[in-house]
């Protein structure tokens, strides 16, 4: 590693990127409810400044890569070095040790910060339109700013503790925003669920953090003198951990627990679809584009730990692959537009985790960045549709929206193709990278993730095209069946002034312009990661690994499967548009399997039957134990009574009256002791004082 010879100016001002949104959150938390424009303006202005700073950081880190090789092209850039620029400061000293925090500027940070802040900025602007009718508008922007600040803080930090703090703050913001309409029981429950389920993972993360601190004595990722936690991996890899893993592997496993919780990987994925109870911009920002990616980012950040332990990497790969395929199958059978996208998110996150597991860190991060753009686009598009269709979320009650909302349709179309992985949109390149990495992972059983991934590609294309057909093509099926119908997860009426049924309408410009910008990014950003020699993003993010050559087999398979998925979807839903009350054609094709998928593989039920029931059983067992103890007590009591009965007889006959006096004195003593506990504080104080005095005297005299 080359030590940073100079600190670029943007590195010393990196702290501004998270701090500005935090400050905005603080200020708008103090603003009264009616200062809507102020708080929104503040939040948006600040996030735009953060975005500009992030772009500066990106430019700086790109230019830094170019500098020593001036005049050369990217393909010739073979530094094999990861570049860091570090800023350290001491939070406080205690005794002889001090707690150091810091920020790091490296390609990973720059790329992630740019994506997060840009997507956040666009979503903030979009929220202006989407939330315009909500009476808690100010609070909403406060929470959004808090979230953005925490997320950006998590990205730029160079310290696992600060990372964890921001991580929890992100979780808090997510909790607040999912439960934004807290008066709705389902929203409150979803918020609670999200908080608790992710906390399960966070417990592991925290344990890993403590263990890492114990083992290395620092929580800085990198330090100028190369004693950072991530720079001591070789030492850690040599120490024994638990379950036959090395210490590095153990810590990596624990940290991965946090990532599983936050990034919605199996088995902790259950909170993410429920989190769609929040307002749609929140779903787009937090539960699609940025926060859920934090888990992937965490693994990418601590990747040296993972690299030191192949067993953990294998586990990561398999969990990712399994999540990818499971979520994709569930998405096929959902009806709620946001739920489909939610499962799609889980599935795509599975791809990223799989990419990390098979050693393609750059590929996974590339997919993360691209996914951030097109998934935000899709969610915002869905929000626009919901907004236009008067808070309808059931795709079987939509249809033909293309006519009424052309901009939304075309941007959504771009997003769909990008997600499905159609050449030459963003998803094509990034998914191809991940699959290539999976393909090259190994032979035999190690081909498993690749096969599952390919299957996932087919399903992704299928469910996305199903959605497009049902929502945008055909005739509008909403409107008449509305009266008396209870809508699943209906968005809050407060957001919308007109509740009367009618034809959908296009959303205002403040919502469509972000869509267009995101569509442009989704369409063209993929070219930053062209395979073959000019794989810029790969060099940029992970120059330590040699770039791989293009693999035509993978590209061909994936593309063919994607097109097959689109075709299958079109055959089922596109050729003959559905009538208003016609059931899902998939029901006939899949039968019972569809119900299985619709009910999410019965995961919630499984957890209900296992974890929750275990807790109940444990409660019963403890209760039984309690009763047992009670029984013993009662038994002893009976025994004592028996003995005392005998005693009584003995007493009566043998000792009789002489003993009664003794009994009486015992009673008196008992009364005296009972009198001690008279409920008066001062008596207790007297007792304490006298006892202390007596004990002290005894101590001195001894």
């Amino acid at each position: 590693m080359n030590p940073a010879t100079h600190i670029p100016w943007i590195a010393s001002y990196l702290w501004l990127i998270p701090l500005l949104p935090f400050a905005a959150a603080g200020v708008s938390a103090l603003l009264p409810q009616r200062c809507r424009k102020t708080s929104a303006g503040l939040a948006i202005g600040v996030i735009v400044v953060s975005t500009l700073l992030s772009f500066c950081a990106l430019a700086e880190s790109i230019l830094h890569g170019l500098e020593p090789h001036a005049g050369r092209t990217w393909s010739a850039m073979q530094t094999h070095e990861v570049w860091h620029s570090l800023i350290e400061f001491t939070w406080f000293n205690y005794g002889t040790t001090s707690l150091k925090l810091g920020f790091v500027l490296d390609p990973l940070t720059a790329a992630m910060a740019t994506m997060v802040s840009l997507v956040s900025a666009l979503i903030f602007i979009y929220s202006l339109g989407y939330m315009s009718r909500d009476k808690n508008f100010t609070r909403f922007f406060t929470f959004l700013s808090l979230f953005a600040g925490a997320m950006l803080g998590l990205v730029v930090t160079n310290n696992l503790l600060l990372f964890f703090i921001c991580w929890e703050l992100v979780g808090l913001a997510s909790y607040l925003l999912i439960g934004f309409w807290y008066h709705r029981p389902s929203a409150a429950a979803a918020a609670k669920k999200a908080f608790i389920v992710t906390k399960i993972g966070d417990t592991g993360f925290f344990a890993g953090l403590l263990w890492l601190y114990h083992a290395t004595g620092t929580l800085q990722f990198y330090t100028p003198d190369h004693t950072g936690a991530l720079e001591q991996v070789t030492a850690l890899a040599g120490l024994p951990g638990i379950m036959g893993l090395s210490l590095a592997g153990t810590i990596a496993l624990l940290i991965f627990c946090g990532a599983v919780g936050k990034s919605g990987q199996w088995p902790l994925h259950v909170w993410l679809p429920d989190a769609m109870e929040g307002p749609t911009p929140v779903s787009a920002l937090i539960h699609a584009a940025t926060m859920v990616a934090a888990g992937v980012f965490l693994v990418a950040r601590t990747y040296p730990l993972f690299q030191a332990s192949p067993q953990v990497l294998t586990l990561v790969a398999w969990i990712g692959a399994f999540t990818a395929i499971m979520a994709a199958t569930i998405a096929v059978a959902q009806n709620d537009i946001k739920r489909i996208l939610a499962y799609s998110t889980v599935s795509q996150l599975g791809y990223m985790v799989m990419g990390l597991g098979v050693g393609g860190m750059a590929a996974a991060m590339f997919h993360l960045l691209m996914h951030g753009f097109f998934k935000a686009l899709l969610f915002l598009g869905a929000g626009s549709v919901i907004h236009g269709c008067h808070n309808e979320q059931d795709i079987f009650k939509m249809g033909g929206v293309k006519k009424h909302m052309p901009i939304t349709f075309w941007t959504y179309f771009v997003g769909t193709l990008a997600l499905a992985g159609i050449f030459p949109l963003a998803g094509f390149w990034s998914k191809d990278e991940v699959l290539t990495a999976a393909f090259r992972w190994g032979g035999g059983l190690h081909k498993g993730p690749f096969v599952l991934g390919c299957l996932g590609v087919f399903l992704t294309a299928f469910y996305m095209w199903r959605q497009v057909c049902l929502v945008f093509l055909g005739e509008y099926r909403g409107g008449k069946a509305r009266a008396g119908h209870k809508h699943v997860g209906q968005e809050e009426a407060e957001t919308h002034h007109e509740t009367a049924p009618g034809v959908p309408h296009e959303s205002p410009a403040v919502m469509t312009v972000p869509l267009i910008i995101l569509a442009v990014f989704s369409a063209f950003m993929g070219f930053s990661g062209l395979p073959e020699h000019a794989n810029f993003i790969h060099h940029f993010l992970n120059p330590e690994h040699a770039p791989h050559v293009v693999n035509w087999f993978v590209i061909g398979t994936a593309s063919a499967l994607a097109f097959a998925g689109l075709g299958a979807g079109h055959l089922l839903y596109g050729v003959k548009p559905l009538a208003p009350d016609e059931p899902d054609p998939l029901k006939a094709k899949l039968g019972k399997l569809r119900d299985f998928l619709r009910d999410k593989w019965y995961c919630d039920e499984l957890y209900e039957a296992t974890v929750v029931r275990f807790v109940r059983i444990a409660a019963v067992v403890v209760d039984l134990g309690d009763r047992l103890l009670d029984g013993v007590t009662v038994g002893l009591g009976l025994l004592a009574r028996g003995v005392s009965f005998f005693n009584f007889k003995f007493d009566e006959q043998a000792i009789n009256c002489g003993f009664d006096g003794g009994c009486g004195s015992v009673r008196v003593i008992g009364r005296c002791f009972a009198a001690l506990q008279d409920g008066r504080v001062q008596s207790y104080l007297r007792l304490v004082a006298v006892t202390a005095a007596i004990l002290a005297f005894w101590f001195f005299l001894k």
Partner: protein
Amino acid sequence: MTTLAHFQLLASMLFAVGLFGAVTRRNAIVVLLSIEIMFNAANLSLVAFWRYGPHPEQLSGVVFAIFGITIAAAEAAVGLALVIVIYRYYKSIEVDKMRSLKG
């Protein structure tokens, strides 16, 4: 010349006076104030130890006295607020009347 023992004896005497008030008086406010006297006695003792101790540059006694004052202030605020609430509830602040915890 004043020795450390003088200060410690004085502090223990003040402590005893405070303890007397705390165990004797019935009025809750006076009890709280007696506790403040005990706090002050402790602070005086700490500062005297600092002044006569072997490591005055560590300032431990002074810092502890400041912490003690802070904690005493917090105690007084909460305690007196409680007294007011108790008065509203029992219509009296005699500590003897508050005995619902009797065993």
